[in-house]
């Protein structure tokens, strides 16, 4: 069995091409009530009164839930701070925050009634929609200081300010100092599956269904809010139809749970795409970078200050800020670094995890600034990066060392893009280097059952949201037990059936859950080896196990054959358990070192239409250090997909707000993502494989690498083609055209 390194058909693929895959909205709970949310047409408002009389008269309507129907004080929750209310209480803090929820027998009735709920509200001026608004001396406070605990920032809109760094930047000499400021827009995940939530009373407990990426986090939060033991909260998490980070953190699960308990029946809330747009987004950011170089282009210091504009509730955004800031200086050898990252509240959609976790924002600024330095020093943009890149095993951040041959990755990308080859007119090339920390802590358990007929079941609490975790775990099991891939079933998504997993994030699952699955297989191998020793009267120590074969001194058997012989005639199975734990390191600024780094080099060649400002991607190359591609096709799918997603925020995606904080381009008509017509003419993804990762067979995490520095690579190419530096994304034709006009006017 050579399952590792092969690219079999995707686990769960049959259901996905036949329409039989059950996503959340496809699950019909008998007797379920339909829920529709009531929202206001502004961001910040005082709720004076809510009159549901008329709505409750619509035939089929059971009740309208508002803050008044929930415990007082309002229960609040969140992964970092308990700041998000079950439903808006007293005041709405972002456009799209629900103030009431209708429960009715049909969708039609719920929708009709939602329009009849009369909300008496007062629009409040002075909403906070930008970093400048938030930090103004007389700014209104987005959150009540009483909810902010002992934070020294409680009387401000700053949630926290992170300080990282090493050395003393003021002590460093520099031949050249460059400084600039950049902006990164608010963008949304736009998973094609909108978010959905269901709940049902379950005896003395509750059952919850959600499009969530982290079922066990949801279980914990629900248990706490409802004061139930974990064993009485059953979370069903069907494979999400795309997550990208947006489905990590609970949103309306507590609301539907309270409604189900009140109704004594299942309730169902499936958001529309438009509603989903208002619930999740990436943090926008304003980034100032300053860096010093020797005349040869060697870094002497870097100084980064980033203001992340998060939303009305913190969600996981403060972790985005700390984790991305910590490695914000990138994979370079820099003697002195100072980093400040601020988490700043605003009256906008709460931002959350989003593929890249803050790195695309900082990477856009840092890599663009390095190009400026190269230009001023007269050094090639590739060379300045190679010159400063940390070498394998070199510590580049205190406590973190380079975990790969990063130079090889950069050189490969440069070669593929034809770096240095002559360029036709109106063309330009750019290259950029990105680095993201993998998980800093982790805990994954897996159970594998080798069944009597030689098939196997794998239990893993990972969510397969498109990355193909089902395939990976089956491949590991096939490799270790010699079971054909088609005979392996991977069970996920039910906390009553599958053991605990911390979460599906940070490209962790192949490495962490993969190790747990492999260890479960090892346990089975051990048990079967003991069976063989007994059956054939050999010393256990003399039996080796390799790819599902038991190698005895004089003969060999398959694991399955030995198991069957040992278990006959009753049958049965052999069960293995595996655990992978990456413990907290209390003294580490992030609570733990990175399990691995996602290291990527992106290079792009563009052609700019000087009349219209339109940017065509002639060639786009992304190379990632993946350790080992356990499934090469899936790695390519992740890399291509992430690159194309990165081109979204680079070229076209951004929320547009009006001055009342309303998002003006909600939905698929007004908010554009790349289609099959917008692709690079030539898209090339490649992996560097040195089997030097911490996961099974030397793998590292993949999935995020190729969008980390899409923007600076493309931005640099546009700069070379046009001679204009653009500091704000996306690089829409209008923005590029305007930059070109500046040129002509000499301004």
């Amino acid at each position, binding site marked *: 069995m050579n399952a590792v390194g092969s690219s079999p058909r995707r686990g769960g693929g049959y259901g*996905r091409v*036949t*329409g039989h895959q059950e996503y959340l909205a496809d699950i019909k709970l008998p007797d379920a009530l339909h829920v529709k949310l009531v929202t206001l047409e502004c961001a910040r408002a005082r709720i004076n009164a809510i009159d549901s009389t008329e709505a409750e008269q619509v035939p089929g309507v059971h009740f309208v839930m508002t803050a008044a129907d929930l415990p007082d004080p309002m229960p609040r929750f969140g992964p970092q701070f308990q700041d998000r209310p079950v439903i808006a209480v007293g005041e709405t803090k972002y456009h799209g925050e629900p103030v009431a929820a209708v429960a009715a027998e049909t969708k039609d009735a719920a929708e009709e009634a939602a329009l009849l709920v009369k909300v008496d509200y007062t629009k409040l001026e002075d909403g906070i929609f930008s970093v400048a608004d938030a930090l103004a001396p007389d700014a209104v406070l987005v959150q009540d200081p009483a909810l902010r605990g002992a934070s020294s920032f409680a009387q401000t809109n700053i949630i926290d300010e992170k300080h990282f760094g090493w050395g003393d930047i003021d002590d460093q000499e520099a031949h050249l100092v460059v400084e600039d400021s950049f902006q990164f827009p608010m963008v949304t995940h736009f998973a094609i599956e*909108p978010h959905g939530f269901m709940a049902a009373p379950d005896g003395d407990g509750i059952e919850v269904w959600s499009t969530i990426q982290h079922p066990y986090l949801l279980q914990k939060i629900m248990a706490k809010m409802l004061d139930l033991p974990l064993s009485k909260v059953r979370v069903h998490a069907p494979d999400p139809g795309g997550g990208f980070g947006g489905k990590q953190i609970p949103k309306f699960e507590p609301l539907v749970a309270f409604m189900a308990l009140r109704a004594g029946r299942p309730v169902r809330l499936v958001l529309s795409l438009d509603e989903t747009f208002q619930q999740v987004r990436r943090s926008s950011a304003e980034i100032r970078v300053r860096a010093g170089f020797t005349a040869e282009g060697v870094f002497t210091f870097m100084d980064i200050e980033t203001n992340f504009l998060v939303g009305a509730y913190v969600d996981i955004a403060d972790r985005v800020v700390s984790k991305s800031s910590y490695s914000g200086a990138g994979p370079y050898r820099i003697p002195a670094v100072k980093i400040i990252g601020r988490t700043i509240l605003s009256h906008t959609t709460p931002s959350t995890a989003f593929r890249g976790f803050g790195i695309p924002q900082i990477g856009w600024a840092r890599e663009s600034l390095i190009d400026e330095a190269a230009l001023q020093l007269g050094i090639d943009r590739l060379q300045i990066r190679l010159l400063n890149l940390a070498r394998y095993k070199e510590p580049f951040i205190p406590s973190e060392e380079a975990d790969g041959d990063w130079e090889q990755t950069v050189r490969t990308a440069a070669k593929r893009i034809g770096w240095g080859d002559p360029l036709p007119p109106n063309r330009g090339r750019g290259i950029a280097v990105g680095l993201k920390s993998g998980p800093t802590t982790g805990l994954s358990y897996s159970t594998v059952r080798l069944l009597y007929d030689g098939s196997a079941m794998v239990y893993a609490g990972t969510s397969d949201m498109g990355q*193909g975790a089902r395939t990976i775990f089956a491949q590991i099991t096939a490799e270790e037990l010699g079971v054909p891939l088609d005979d392996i079933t991977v069970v996920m998504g039910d906390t009553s059936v599958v053991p605990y997993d911390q979460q599906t994030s940070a490209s962790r699952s192949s490495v962490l859950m993969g190790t747990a699955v492999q260890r479960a297989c090892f346990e089975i191998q051990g048990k079967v080896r003991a069976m063989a020793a007994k059956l054939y009267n050999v010393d256990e120590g003399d039996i080796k196990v390799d790819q599902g074969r038991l190698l005895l001194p004089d003969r060999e058997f398959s694991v399955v054959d030995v198991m069957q012989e040992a278990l006959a005639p009753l049958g049965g199975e052999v069960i293995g358990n595996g655990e992978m734990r990456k413990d907290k390191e209390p003294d580490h600024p992030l609570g733990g070192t990175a399990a691995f780094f996602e290291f990527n080099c992106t290079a792009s060649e563009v052609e700019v239409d000087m009349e219209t400002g339109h940017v065509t991607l002639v060639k786009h190359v992304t190379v990632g250090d993946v350790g080992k591609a356990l499934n090469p096709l899936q790695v390519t799918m992740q890399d*291509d997909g992430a690159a194309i997603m990165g081109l979204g925020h680079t070229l076209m995606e951004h929320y547009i707000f009006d001055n009342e904080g309303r998002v003006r381009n909600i939905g698929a008509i007004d908010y554009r993502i790349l289609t*099959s*017509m917008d692709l690079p003419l030539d898209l090339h993804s490649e992996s560097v494989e040195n089997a030097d990762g911490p996961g099974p067979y030397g793998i590292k995490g993949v999935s995020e690498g190729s969008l980390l520095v899409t923007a600076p690579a493309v931005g640099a190419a546009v700069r070379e083609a046009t001679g204009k530096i653009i500091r704000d994304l996306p690089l829409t034709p209008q923005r590029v055209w305007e930059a070109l006009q500046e040129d002509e006017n000499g301004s």
Partner: protein
Amino acid sequence: MNRTLTIETTINGRRRSLDVAVNHTLLDVLRDDIDLTGTKECCVVGECGACTVIIDGRPMNSCLMLAVEIDGSEVTTVEGLELEEGLSPLQGAFLDEGATQCGFCIPGQLMAATALLQQNPDPTVEEIQEGLAGNLCRCAGYEQITKAVLAAARGVKQ
């Protein structure tokens, strides 16, 4: 209650007489009334293609059509693609080429591609990209989807 009308239609080869609410879209009826949930709901404004079905040989966004409009028509949904002997060549190619990530857009992609291949059995890459331009994939498996449609076209031709 909403007014209903009775329509006669053939869905995936099966003749059906359905009482449908006059305000319900075809997507509503497929998913909610007759449990054909393979057809997906995303934008409901005709921009994402997740709800694509084939009506009388043409790919249509079922979120934009009222169910009453299919009276007398023949409808194929993703559930109707599988052949007696198993997956259709196109479905197989989607799996072999890695076109299927989260899978949520895939029913729509398959229906648009099936209709495309019916009209143009030998499409170029550009024709495929154009034919599927109305089907968004946020996992962005566009390259793999295009390859799968090409592979299916070649396979069918042989």
